[in-house]
Each structure stands twice: as C-alpha cells, then as structure tokens.
C-alpha cells in the first residue's frame, strides 16, 4: 500500500520519499539492534532503552507494541491497516490510549519486525512512543473543525514531531517528555498537566505565537504547570523549545526515577527555571533554529481544509434514539452544514478504548463515506470523525450502530478513562478495567446518565496515574493495602483551562464497595445540585463536606 491508495482529501501529514527513506533506515537500525541483542553484543540493560524508543514494552503476559498516532490523526487506510495488524498479530483488538496512540497488548517479539513493516506501508511507526525522549505530541481532536479554533495546532504538532524525531541532544533525557498543544482558547488537551503545554494564539496583527507552560504532570506528584512565557513568536518556536529542553537535560534529576520529570525541576527552581530558559534562549544563535514561514506554509498545506460543500445548517431527524445519540456525540463545526462526531469506545460493560479489527474497518469505511477519510483519536480514548455533513448524520449513526459503536454516552458517567491496570500492566497495584466495567454497568440506563449530565470518572491501577485520575471529577486510584486491592477517591479534578488536581476525600474503599461509593457520590450531587450544575460545579460550590458525610457517616 502507498499514498496513492490514501483517501485523497484526508488531511494527515503525507510522507514523501525523504520521510519514507528515513523510516526504512530507522527500521533497519532497530533490526540491527535486535540482532546485536540476540548475539549478546548488547546487554538487556543496554537494549532496553533502544527497544523502548521503538515502542516495545514488556508487560505482565506479553510484549506490548505502542504505535504512534501523531497528534491523534489517522486516515482510513491507516486505520484499516491497524485493523489488519490487530487481526493478524494480536487477538483481534487494539487499545487506544490517552496519549492518542494505539497499543497491541499481545505482541510476540518475533513478530515485531513484520508489524513495523506493515506499519511502514502506511507511513506509520512506533518511534519514541516510550523511553526517555520526546514522545508523541498530543493535540485537540477537533483541530481544523472546531468553531472556536484560532490557530490550527496540527501544523505545529507536526513541526514538533519532525523536530523531536531522533533529536541528537534530547534522546537521552532524565525521563520521558510529553508536549501538548492547543490552538483554541478552550483547552481540550490538558496543556497544564504536561511537561510542556503550548497554547497557540494570534496577536492583534494576526500573527501566530505561543503561550508556553512547563512542568505540569500527573503521576505520583501531580503538579499544575508554570507559565514560562505569554508569547513566543512563531519563528522562534523551535528555538524556545530547544532552550527548555536544554535546561532540563542539563539539570533534571537522574538518580531518582520518581524525581526525574521536568515538573520536579520546575517546582524546585520556580522562577529561576524560567530565567534559565530565557537566558539560554537569549544567547543561542537563533538564526540557526529559526522556523521559516515557508516551512510553516509547506507543512501547513498538508492540513488545508478539505473541499467542503456549500451547505446550510439543518434540523436533525426526529427519531428519538437517534436524537439521544446525537445529543451526546455531535459537536458544532466551523463549516455550515457540517458536524464533528465522537464515536464512543466505551460500550456499557466494555473495556475503555478497545476496538476490534472489525470495528476499525467499519470506522475506516464510514470515515471514507462521510468524513473525507479522516479519523481522530481523542485523549479520552474515543474516536472522532471530524467533518461529517449534517444530512449524513442519520446514515452514519445507523452504520455505527451496526458496528456496535453508537453508545450515546460521550461526556457522561460511563465515558470512563481507565488504564490497563492489573489486567496487563506489570506495575499495577490493582485492577482498573473491571472497575470501569462495573461502574458502566451500574449506570447502564442511558436516560439516567443523561439526567446525571457531564461527569468524568478516571481510573488508574497505580500511583503512576496513566488513567489521569487526578484530573477527573471523580478520580479512582487502585492501591495495594497489605495484599488487598483498595480504591481511593479524589474529587474535583479538572484538565481544562481551570485545571485542578482532585482532592482525596477519605479512606479507601474495597473492590466490592467502590461502585457503591460512586453511586453515593452521584446521589449526593443530584440531591444538592441547582439547575444546570454539573457534578464539578456542585462540588466546587459545596466543597467536600456533604460528599464526605454521605460516604463515611455511620449508617
């Protein structure tokens, strides 16, 4: 397969011969490394960071291959190929992650070269999806479609992707490094809990510049990022990123893995960190790192608007079930007559983020028919068809329903983020997937979910917080207490503009009582809410007291 069979209007970055040559060279390099490992020329300690930088993790039961979906953007040919890989080399499933990537949890080491070749056929790879390097940049799943967008973040996410690929200075950092970028004033990428968060914006003259944050993160020490600068001009974007990474690479802690993220350095140095970055930025030969407007334009051309038809907004069909789905799944589009559609990968009782090979193929087909062949992966582990004609929505819904992909629960209580937890992860201290499944089943009644309204539940199976529990309205963290899995609850977290870290509400609950506890929290919210209030609003207004009392008061 090659670019010729790509859907013509899908706006993903299109590889040319140079990019393909690079990818082939990279695969050749990894093949050589595997051979040296097998011959004993590399120790496992030496080999490990090399395999991690190619996306290969050792999990509880098997290897996991994590594949990069650059800033969550896929075309239908790529998604179809992922389905093929799932069927051929995994157990017929793939798992979409909160970093907008996909993981295959049942990978055999000997299959990896063939899987990488299959990925390369559609210009995909697993480079830098793990390891202490700059990881996949994440961005807004509604990029290029959202009415509130000021700057198209995909252009700069692609520039960051290229710049960070095998960066000679920043491939052996103290720890992994994650960048998120958004181009709309409403932060949908959790910019402030990333190593670097970037808000692309425009000044009065319409020029593009960037507000830059650093040192946010979750994990065992959740921290909201520090703002470094209100405005970095477009031409200096890479220079400024270099400056941040240089300071981190030189000074980040290396002797303690739990203190090695940039957030610890920024927290410890405070304003001095900003000054050091500024000083580095001032003295570097900036011409050398200048981002030419011609390059921005050439990369930007890959993301030009697809050929939208001139349409009018129109009313939706009356069908009640369709309306319920539409209410949860459809989002306004900047182009009249179009809408963005979120596809839930959270069927009631299912594994959050899992999609079968058949489902991937079904979505690829539907994307070709209804969305210029374009698909996005969201950081809450769902998929998006960005550009759907409103007149096609009913047909699309029927197609999704046939594939088991029309659960109308986007943004509702069963739209849960859960990390793999004890079911797959070697670091887990508790199960997280079964908790998500039980909560989803408990609230299976969709009318009830709609009545409860927007509520985010995130679940992590250990303190590393891959499930982002700190930034959930209701966060659940599984820990091990003398051999028993118990679950702590945090309330009031948020990952958007008003980013906040949830607060621990009290003693943990057992595996058997945690779902009841969630039910109690919801009942308390419903009893206290005023009209139009979401769970988080009620919590912020009343504080923890009523929730605590409901959970812990003697019956």
């Amino acid at each position: 397969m090659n670019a010729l069979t790509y859907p013509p209007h899908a706006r993903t970055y299109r590889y040319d011969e140079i990019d393909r040559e690079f990818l082939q060279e990279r695969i050749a390099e990894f093949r050589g490394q595997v051979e040296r490992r097998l011959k004993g020329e590399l120790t496992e300690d030496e080999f490990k960071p090399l395999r991690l930088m190619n996306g290969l993790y050792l999990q509880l039961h098997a290897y996991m291959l994590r594949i990069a979906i650059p800033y969550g953007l896929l075309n239908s040919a790529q998604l179809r190929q992922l389905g093929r890989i799932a069927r051929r080399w995994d157990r017929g499933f793939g798992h979409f992650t909160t970093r907008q990537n996909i993981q295959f949890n049942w990978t055999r080491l000997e299959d990896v070269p063939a899987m990488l070749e299959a990925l390369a056929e559609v210009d995909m790879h697993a480079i830098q999806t793990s390891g202490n390097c700059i990881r996949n940049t994440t961005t807004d799943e509604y990029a290029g479609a959202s009415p509130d967008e000021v700057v198209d973040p995909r252009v700069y996410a692609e520039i960051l992707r290229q710049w960070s690929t095998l960066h000679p200075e920043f491939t052996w950092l103290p720890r992994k490094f994650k960048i998120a970028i958004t181009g709309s004033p409403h932060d949908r990428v959790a910019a402030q809990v990333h190593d670097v968060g970037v808000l692309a914006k425009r000044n009065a003259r319409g020029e593009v510049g960037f507000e830059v944050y650093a040192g946010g993160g979750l994990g065992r020490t959740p921290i909201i990022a520090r703002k470094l600068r209100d405005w970095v001009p477009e031409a200096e974007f890479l220079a400024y990123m270099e400056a941040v990474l240089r300071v981190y690479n030189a000074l980040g802690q290396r002797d303690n893995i739990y203190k090695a993220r940039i957030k610890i350095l920024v927290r410890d140095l405070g304003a001095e960190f900003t000054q050091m970055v500024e000083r580095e930025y001032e003295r570097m030969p900036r011409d050398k790192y200048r981002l030419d407007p011609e390059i921005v334009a050439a990369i930007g051309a890959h993301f030009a608007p697809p050929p939208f038809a001139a349409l009018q907004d129109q009313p939706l069909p009356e069908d009640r079930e369709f309306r319920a789905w539409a209410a949860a799944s459809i989002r306004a589009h900047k182009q009249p007559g179009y809408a963005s559609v979120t596809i839930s990968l959270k069927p009631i009782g299912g594994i959050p983020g899992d999609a079968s090979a058949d489902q991937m193929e079904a979505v690829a087909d539907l994307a070709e028919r209804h969305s210029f062949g374009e698909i996005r992966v969201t950081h809450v582990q769902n998929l998006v068809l960005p550009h759907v004609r409103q007149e096609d929505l009913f047909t699309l819904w029927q197609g999704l329903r046939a594939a088991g992909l029309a659960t109308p629960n986007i943004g509702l209580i069963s739209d849960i983020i859960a990390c793999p937890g004890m079911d797959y992860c070697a670091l887990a201290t508790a199960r997280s997937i079964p908790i998500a499944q039980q909560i989803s089943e408990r609230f299976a009644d969709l009318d009830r979910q709609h009545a409860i309204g927007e509520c985010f539940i995130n679940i992590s199976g250990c303190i590393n917080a891959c499930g982002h529990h700190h930034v959930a309205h209701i966060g659940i963290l599984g820990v091990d207490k003398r051999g028993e899995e118990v679950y702590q609850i945090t309330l009031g977290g948020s990952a958007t503009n008003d980013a906040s870290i949830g607060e621990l509400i009290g003693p943990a609950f057992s595996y058997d009582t945690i779902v009841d506890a969630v039910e109690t929290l919801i009942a308390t919210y419903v009893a206290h809410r005023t009209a139009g209030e979401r769970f988080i609003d009620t919590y912020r207004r009343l504080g923890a007291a009523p929730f605590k009392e409901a959970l812990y008061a003697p019956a």
Partner: protein
Amino acid sequence: MPLLEDGRLRPDDWTSIEDEAPLPEGPAIVSLARLRAEADALAGRNAPLGVALSPETQPEEVAPFLDRLALVAVCLPKSKDGRAFTQIRALREHHGFTGEIRATGHVLPDQYAMLLRCGVTTVEVPESTDPATWTRSRDTIRIAYQAAQSADRPLSLLRRKLELA
C-alpha cells in the same frame, strides 16, 4: 583504551592525571578543580592540555580556560545519562570551542551519530571494540529533522541529509 575517530580506531596519546599526581611531559588531561587551582602553572607547560568534565559541570564553568585547552573530555556514566550531549553542544555552540571533544564512559555505538551531530570528535571505546559496529550504526540513518552542529546538507522542510562519514 583506544579511541574512535572518523570511524577508525587509533591509540590515545593523552594521559589522564589524578589531582595529586605530578604532571608528565606529554599531553595531559586534568580535572576542572585542578585546572582552576593551577591554571597558570598548567598554562606554562610545553605540552597540550585537556580537562575532564563531570556530567554535573556546566560548560560555562570551563569557558574561561578554553583558549588554553586542546581537549575537553565529557562522560556518560551510564549510556542512558545524556547530559554530555548538552555539554558538547554548548561547548561548540556557545563557547566556540574548536579542539577535540572526547566522549568517555559507557557509550553505545547507537549513540555515535548523535554524539557526532552534537559536536564530538572522539569516543573512548573498550579494547575489543569492532569499529565496524560503530560505523554501521553511524551510517544507518542518514536523514535528520533538526539543526545540529554537524555540517548537514539541507533538504526540503526541516530535513537534512547527514554527512557524518
């Protein structure tokens, strides 16, 4: 230990000197502490002088002495510890150092190309090393997506063709 330069092994004619030990005749590498303490005496010697930086050292600290130095050695205590990459780049880019920069410690062949791109001259390698492993690794990936200290040939967009051999 032998040195790797331009993909070939060559003997090391430098000697690393302990802080208390007397200085030999030929090329000598001293610590930054000794360089600071004995700057004038060391400058008066009639042989090339080098300094070994620890990974914590900020390159500014050695800047005042660079015009007297023919060699700066940096160290990767473990192959995962990449502070040296930033030191090397800073020595070249900020301080215009044109002498030999030598990477020591636990360096992998897989890091050779990146070290060269940051500005390294030589790598200290174990006796038994097969230089072919290093050159193969250096020459496998010949396209890069960002500016560095090496003289690359620009291609379209951010890309460039590496000419490290």
